[in-house]
Every structure is written in structure tokens, then in C-alpha cells.
């Protein structure tokens, strides 16, 4: 069979499920080990280098890393990666003197960033230490984008946000708050060497049902309403509020309404509870705050009585999937009138590029989205780069950060006259963790404890005040316990064919039956999944990880390791009489980002 290529880091990075899943490739196991060592500031800096907003993300990240976590495969629940990030942020010391500084001497290149959300702020942070001059424009009065305007203070305290935004602004950004950019054409005339568009997806979708016009004063677009609350223009909600939509915006709307005095808050959604787009923890938190989530109801009319909104009329529906896998709704014949004083429409957002003239050479596709090179985020005007929600529609903060890194590399290459497609390859290092007999420089004993829950304040307390943070975060003891659950997936099982004597000791000791010695299969073309079916001790449980396939050993056999279930416990290396297995830690220099 075809040997796994380990001449670069691709195979090993994939093995680190969380780091691979994190759009910014945060070295998760490394920072968790530092937390376990109570080195909170170090853990914070590792995070800051990759994801720029550890305090923010430690609270509100979408956490694509957690469903990927190996722990979820070998046990039940993933490591609380996100909440451990918050631990690093909460318990760190003052780290300001560890932040990179812009050089005294500028490199002469001027970059304009439009929008001060996480995407633009990341570009600023990555380029400032390289000597770029950064001009940042936002129509809002403060930086942060939707992290400030949308995410309510009970999930993300303002102080945490301010602190991490200031780290960047204080590096020497020339910021222009309260200034909306209204013409790309004009901007292009100014002598910026490159322009980054990070304007997000700021346009909330409306719901034009019968009655819409008459009821207009009592219908708000969810994200506009939330922004008004954030900026202090609105501090009250009427008694009865209906929220339409089942995503995270809907969850923030309903919980905010509750805090602004609404007594009866209903989220009414077309889909089933399971199919709702909101993260499971957001739904749970909303339910815990006594918010009614009514599923399988499709809105049909804003009912108006005497010129005033009476409520919203719904058809009850059943949803099922047709043979093509598409969701189909069928009316059951039942209807529901949800009486209310305010409707918040949270059914999606779109990008808004009215300010980009269509005749200046910036190409748009059929969906009115700018055409971008996916690897570089470069538009059809070579000095214009677009990232964050503006690039491909609404995502999340960590994706915006990853886009920021990507665009910063592109801009840096572009400004040096280089081809942004020629991405610099990251260095990687594999370092043996062996210290002696049964002695490793990481804790290889497997912790069998279950995931620790983050303490919350009581919901009655929580809903009293908009700015009261609901989650309390781990205390130190819980943090250390949770950190102990990490399996150290970045400490890899590295195999050397030439020293293996095929004694099968590793195969026998492996608790999760990852290792197999089998007859070689003379076929380099058929996918390994197919070739290996039924050939291993236990068939693959998931396809999340690949096989690690060795070269031919002395007898001609091969070693096949299923990377799915490996606990990184090092027993194979302990048991190997010849050191053919070794546990080696992978270090990558902040891949796909300019700050190493």
C-alpha cells in the first residue's frame, strides 16, 4: 500500500483534531498543558498569537474545535477547550509588555482597513509589527464590529472586549471611527498600497408577510435591534415579544428582551428543535431563562387590529426530508396566533456592498458577492482584499480572524511585489518527549473523568441586569481538572520502519486497538478505507482521521495505525523494545499567519 507521507506536517496536523478544526489553527493541546502547569500568561500568549481575541473567544467562540475533539470519539464529551481559553485570559498577568510592537520606522506602505470587526483588527495586528501604516475606518464609534454591536454584554463583558481591541489599536493604528466609507471608487484614488474590506454582513433580512406595513412600528430586524441596545439607544422591551428564527441571533434577541423587561418571550421557529441553527448551549441557556421555544411553526401573517399589531399567525408544519435529502415542510392544518407587542425578525443577514461601484473593475458573482481567490482573498482589483463575513456571508469570529491572517499574508506578499498565491510554508518540528524509562515530558496517563460543567449564576439573577455575565468560568480547581482531560494529540506516535523487529508488543498493548501489522496489499490506487475493510483488528469507527501506513517492514508486512482512536498514551512507545515508536511533539510556527 501507499506509505503515508510524513515529510511535511499535513498528516500530523490532522491528527491534532482541535488544532486542525480551528480556522486559526490554535495549538490547543499546547495551551492546555500550560494551563495544567498554571502558566496562564504563557497559555494566553499562545492563544493570542493564533486567535487574537482569547478573552472574547474563550466566552463566545463557535468552537468548531470541540465537536472535533478526539475525546468525543474515545469517550463521550470533548474537552472544554473554549472555557479553558477563558481560564487563560481570566488568570493571566499583565501581558502588555509581551505584545509585539510596531517598529519605529514604517516600511512606507499604507493599508486601509474598512470596518473594525475581528477580520480587520486581525489584519491590523498582523501587519503593524511588520512596519505597515494602518488606517482603520468604521462607521461605528468604537471598534469591534459585531463583537460589540451584536453579542450581548451578558455573554461578553465590555471590559474583556475593550482590553483585547486596545491591544491592537494601541500598537499604532490610525483609526477613523464614525466614518462610513461610501465609495470604493473614491477610496481607490487615495494612495493606499492595499485595501482590506472587512465590513461584515450587516444587513438583516426582513420578512414581508401580509400585515407587514401596518405593523411596521412594532417589527424590528433582530440585529438592528440588538445594535440599538448595545449602543444604548434602546433599553426597554414591551411585555410580550415574539422572536422569529432559530439561530444564535434569535437566542441573543430573546435573552436580551427578557433582560429589558419583557415578561413573555417566545422564540417561534419553522424547524424542529434539533434542526435549529443555534448552538446547543445557546438553546439550553435560553430555555434555562424561561424562554418558550415553539418549534414547527411557519409564520404566515402579521395580524393587525385597529392599526396595531395583535400578533403573528403561524401554520403548524411537519418537516421531513425527501429522498434527495431536502427538507420539506407540510402543513398540519393547525394554526397558532401568538399575540405580542414586538416582533424581532432574526432570519438571517446579508453582506452589503452598495458602496462599491459596479463599474470600477471589482467583479461580483451571480449572488452579488465579490469574486475572490479563495487562497488569497484577493478580489479582481489586485490591491483589494476582502475577508470576514464580507467575503462569503455570515460566519463567526474565529473565521473572521483566520481570514484576517490569510489576507495579511496576501497583502504582505502583494506589497513586496510577490505573488500572493506563493504562500510561505510553515516550519515544523517534531521533538521526542522521552525522558527515561516510563518517563515522558508530558502527562501520558489517561484521565477518565467526564467533562466539567461551567458554573452559571442563577437565571433569576442573570435576567435582572443586561450586563451581568451569565457564565462564571471555571475556578482554578475545575480548570486544572478539565485541563487534565486533554489527550495531548500533538504528541505524535512517530514510527521508524527500519528499527521495528515486528514483535507485535505495541499491537498488543494499545488500549484502543489502533496498531495493526498486516500483509502488504499490492495496490497503491484504491483508497485505503476500501482496501483495509475487514483487514484490521477493529474496523474504523469514524472517518474523521486517516490511517497511518508504514513502508514495508523486514518481513514485507506493513504497519497500519488507525489514527481515529489513538489516546496518545505512549504505551506503544513504552512497550517497543527498539524505539521504533517514539512520542514526538509537533510544533508549528503559527501556520498561515505572519506573526510567528
Amino acid at each position, binding site marked *: 500500500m501507499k506509505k503515508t507521507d510524513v515529510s511535511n506536517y499535513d498528516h500530523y496536523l490532522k491528527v491534532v483534531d482541535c488544532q486542525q478544526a480551528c480556522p486559526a489553527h490554535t495549538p490547543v493541546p499546547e495551551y492546555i498543558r500550560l494551563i495544567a502547569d498554571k502558566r496562564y500568561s504563557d497559555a494566553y500568549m499562545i492563544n493570542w498569537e493564533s486567535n487574537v481575541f482569547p478573552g472574547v473567544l474563550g466566552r463566545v467562540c463557535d468552537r468548531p474545535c470541540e465537536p472535533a475533539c478526539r475525546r468525543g*470519539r*474515545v*469517550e463521550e464529551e470533548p474537552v472544554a477547550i473554549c472555557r479553558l481559553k477563558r481560564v487563560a485570559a481570566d488568570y493571566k498577568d499583565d501581558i502588555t509588555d509581551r505584545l509585539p510592537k510596531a517598529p519605529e520606522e514604517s516600511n512606507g506602505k499604507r493599508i486601509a482597513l474598512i470596518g473594525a470587526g475581528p477580520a480587520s483588527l486581525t489584519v491590523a495586528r498582523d501587519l503593524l509589527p511588520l512596519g505597515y501604516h494602518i488606517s482603520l475606518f468604521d462607521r461605528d464609534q468604537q471598534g469591534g464590529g459585531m463583537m460589540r454591536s451584536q453579542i450581548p454584554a451578558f455573554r461578553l463583558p465590555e471590559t474583556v472586549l475593550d482590553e483585547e481591541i486596545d491591544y491592537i489599536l494601541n500598537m499604532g493604528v490610525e483609526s477613523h471611527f464614525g466614518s462610513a466609507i461610501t465609495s470604493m471608487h473614491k477610496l481607490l484614488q487615495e494612495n493606499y498600497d492595499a485595501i482590506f474590506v472587512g465590513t461584515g454582513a450587516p444587513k438583516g433580512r426582513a420578512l414581508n408577510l401580509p400585515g407587514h406595513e401596518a405593523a411596521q412600528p412594532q417589527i424590528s430586524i433582530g440585529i438592528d435591534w440588538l445594535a440599538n441596545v448595545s449602543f444604548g439607544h434602546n433599553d426597554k422591551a414591551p411585555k410580550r415579544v415574539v422572536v422569529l428564527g432559530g439561530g444564535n441571533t434569535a437566542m441573543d434577541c430573546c435573552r436580551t428582551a427578557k433582560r429589558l423587561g419583557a415578561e413573555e418571550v417566545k422564540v417561534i421557529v419553522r424547524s424542529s428543535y434539533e434542526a435549529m441553527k443555534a448552538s446547543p448551549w445557546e438553546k439550553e441557556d435560553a430555555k434555562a431563562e424561561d424562554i418558550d421555544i415553539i418549534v414547527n411553526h411557519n409564520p404566515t401573517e402579521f395580524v393587525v387590529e385597529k392599526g396595531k399589531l395583535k400578533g403573528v399567525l403561524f401554520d403548524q408544519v411537519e418537516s421531513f426530508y425527501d429522498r434527495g435529502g431536502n427538507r420539506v415542510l407540510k402543513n398540519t392544518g393547525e394554526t397558532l396566533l401568538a399575540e405580542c407587542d414586538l416582533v424581532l425578525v432574526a432570519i438571517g443577514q446579508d453582506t452589503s456592498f452598495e458602496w462599491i461601484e459596479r463599474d470600477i473593475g471589482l467583479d461580483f458573482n451571480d449572488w452579488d458577492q465579490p469574486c475572490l481567490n479563495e487562497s488569497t482573498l484577493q478580489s479582481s482589483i489586485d490591491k483589494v482584499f476582502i475577508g470576514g463575513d464580507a467575503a462569503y456571508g455570515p460566519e463567526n469570529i474565529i473565521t473572521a480572524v483566520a481570514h484576517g491572517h490569510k489576507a495579511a499574508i496576501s497583502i504582505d506578499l502583494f506589497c513586496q511585489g510577490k505573488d500572493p498565491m506563493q504562500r510561505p510554508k510553515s516550519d515544523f518540528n517534531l521533538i521526542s518527549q522521552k525522558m527515561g524509562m*516510563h*518517563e*515522558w515530558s508530558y*502527562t*501520558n*496517563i*489517561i484521565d*477518565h473523568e467526564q467533562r466539567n460543567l461551567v458554573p452559571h449564576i442563577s437565571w433569576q439573577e442573570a435576567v435582572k441586569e443586561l450586563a451581568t455575565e451569565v457564565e462564571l468560568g471555571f475556578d482554578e480547581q475545575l480548570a486544572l481538572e478539565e485541563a487534565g482531560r486533554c489527550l495531548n494529540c500533538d504528541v505524535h506516535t512517530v514510527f521508524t520502519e527500519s528499527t521495528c*523487529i*515486528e*514483535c*507485535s*508488543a505495541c*499491537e*498488543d*498493548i494499545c*488500549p*484502543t*486497538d489502533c496498531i495493526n501489522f498486516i500483509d502488504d496489499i499490492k495496490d497503491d490506487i484504491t483508497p485505503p478505507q476500501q482496501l483495509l475493510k*475487514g483487514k484490521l483488528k*477493529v*474496523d474504523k*469507527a469514524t472517518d474523521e482521521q486517516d490511517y497511518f501506513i508504514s513502508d514495508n517492514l*523486514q*518481513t514485507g508486512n506493513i504497519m497500519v495505525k488507525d489514527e481515529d*482512536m489513538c*489516546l496518545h*498514551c505512549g*504505551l506503544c512507545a*513504552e*512497550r*517497543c*523494545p*527498539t524505539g521504533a515508536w517514539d512520542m514526538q511533539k509537533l510544533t508549528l510556527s503559527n501556520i498561515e499567519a505572519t506573526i510567528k
Partner: protein
Amino acid sequence: MSFAKSRFKHKSLPVNDLGLTYREYEGAISTLCAGCGHDSISAAIVHACHELSIAPHSIAKMSGIGCSSKAPNYFLSNAHGFNSVHGRMPSVTTGANLANKDLTYLAMSGDGDSASIGLGQFAHVVRRQLNMVYMVANNGVYGLTKGQLAATSDKGVRNKTGELSLFNDIDLCTMALQLGASFVARCFSGDKAQLVPIIKAAIAHQGFAYIDIISPCVTFNNHEGSTRSYDYVQEHVTTGAVTDFVPIKEEITSATPEGEFEDICLHDGSIMRIYKLDQDYDTSNRLKAMNDVEEHKQRGEILTGLLYLDPTARNYHELNETTDMPLNQVKQDLLCPGERVLGTINDSFR
């Protein structure tokens, strides 16, 4: 630092008829040298017992002294066991088996334990046809006492310290054949595909089953010039047939080589299926088996596989016509039926 095996296991591990995975058949974590062949034998026993769905508590692990004799600690934590005096495992097992013939006796011995100090015991337990599986982990040395040559070492080899083997080797398979063992096999610890079915068949066989398992001692007998090293064995091992064990209930769907095969039906109705690689191969001919072992040896090959099997042989209990009920369950009033019965017996001699 740690040296503990995680309780976590693969999510799709098969469970057997008792609802157990093989992990429930494991023992303590081994303290033998990393890479010792004996650990592979332990693993093979674990898998064989799991696949046969034997309740661990119906097994007794018997051993003498040596690294190999320590091995029972590293499999089947929930089985009974007796770690006896050096070379005396056969008599202890005989006693245990007499008292309770219902247990499955898995004996693990070494070539020192069985071919040196325990040779007499070995010979007699074979003769007695005790219903047991007698495994010898054959590494050519006394591993536990740091590598002195064992009586199974080939003449002319040197051990790690340079000591020359002056005498002819004892081949325990040949001896077992000669002394009337009804099941004789030789295996290599590194070949579980062969070892596991043979252990399963040996357990199913209701008589004396001997398995000689070449099991390299990585620490004291894995050097160049050794005829029990991993390299040497991997290069010189050969077999006359691929054997597969088919339990009673199971459909025959094995993925073993195509072509002709022969089935041998064991006591409990399970089948030992034999795919001949060598047309000459025959498990029913004791003399030929002895001859084959010697011939291969002369050619510098190690013949492995099932060497001889007589599924009809009668075991110790059958030969002695003991009661159906294990003796340890026979109640006192039956064992000691009282004066009236004694009188009748005495009268019969008058």
C-alpha cells in the same frame, strides 16, 4: 510518568456471547521486558478465550517459575490461578484437575520450567493424558535468571554471554508425541493468525493438548547467531497447513486461502479446518509428525502449525472412569456412605 493502560477502548470492539469485549479478558499490565514474546502469547490467550466466550472464572491458569510462568498474571484477571514451584506445575495441575474437572486448565510454562527442572513432571502429565492446555513459551534460555542456555537450545549456538550449547536439544513436541499427547502443535508468538485458532482448538480438545510456542527473549536471546531471535524465527519459520478454528454455532465463512481443506471434528462439535500447504501434510499420523519435525530441523527450518491431533483419545478422567460430578462437588455422605456400605464392600472380599 505513568505505566497504566487506559480503560478507554475502541467503540466498535466486538462483544462475545457473554456480552464481554476482549478487554475484560486482560490481566495486569505486563512487567516483562518490552517486546518479550511471552506478552504476545498472553494477548493470543486473551483473544482465544474471548472469542470462545468462556467465562473467565471457569478457567484456571497454572504455571511454574520463569518469565513465562509469570505471564498468567498478565491475562485473565478474573480467572483462577496457581503459580507453583519451579517445574512442579504438572503435578499441581493434576491435583486441581482431579478435584475439579469442570474448569478449563490453561498452563503456561517455560522451556526451563518444563525441559530442565520439570522434565520428569512434564513426561508424566503427558502420559496421564490430563485434560489441559499445556503451553511452553520456548525461548531457548532461562530468561528470568538472565539468559542461561535452556535444554531446548540448539546444539552449537551461543547465548548472549558467549556460553556454547554443547548438548543435543530437547524437543518438547517430539517428546509429547512420543509420550502419547493427543494434540501437539508448534507456533510462533509473533503469528497470532496461527496461534489464536490453535489455542482455541486446544481448549476445545478434551484431552492433553501441548503447544510449543517459540517466543523470543528480546533481552537475552535476540542476538545474532541465536536460533530463537525474532529475525531468525521470522526467516526460518514454515508451516504445513493453515489452520482455522470454527466454533459449533458459527457458519464457516473464514477468509483463509482457497483450495482444498480437511475438517477435523472436535469433542464439542467445533471444527478444526485445515488448509494444506504441503500435500503431504497429515495430522493423524504420529510417527510422521515426529519425523517431519526432525526433517525440517535438519533443513534449518522451524516447522509450525498443528502437528498431530487425535480427537478420539480418552483423557485421564475417562481412563480412570471417575464420576461425572467433579470430585470437589461430591458431598460427604456420598464420599463416605457409612458403615452399612463399607460392610457390603468388605463382604465382597470375603
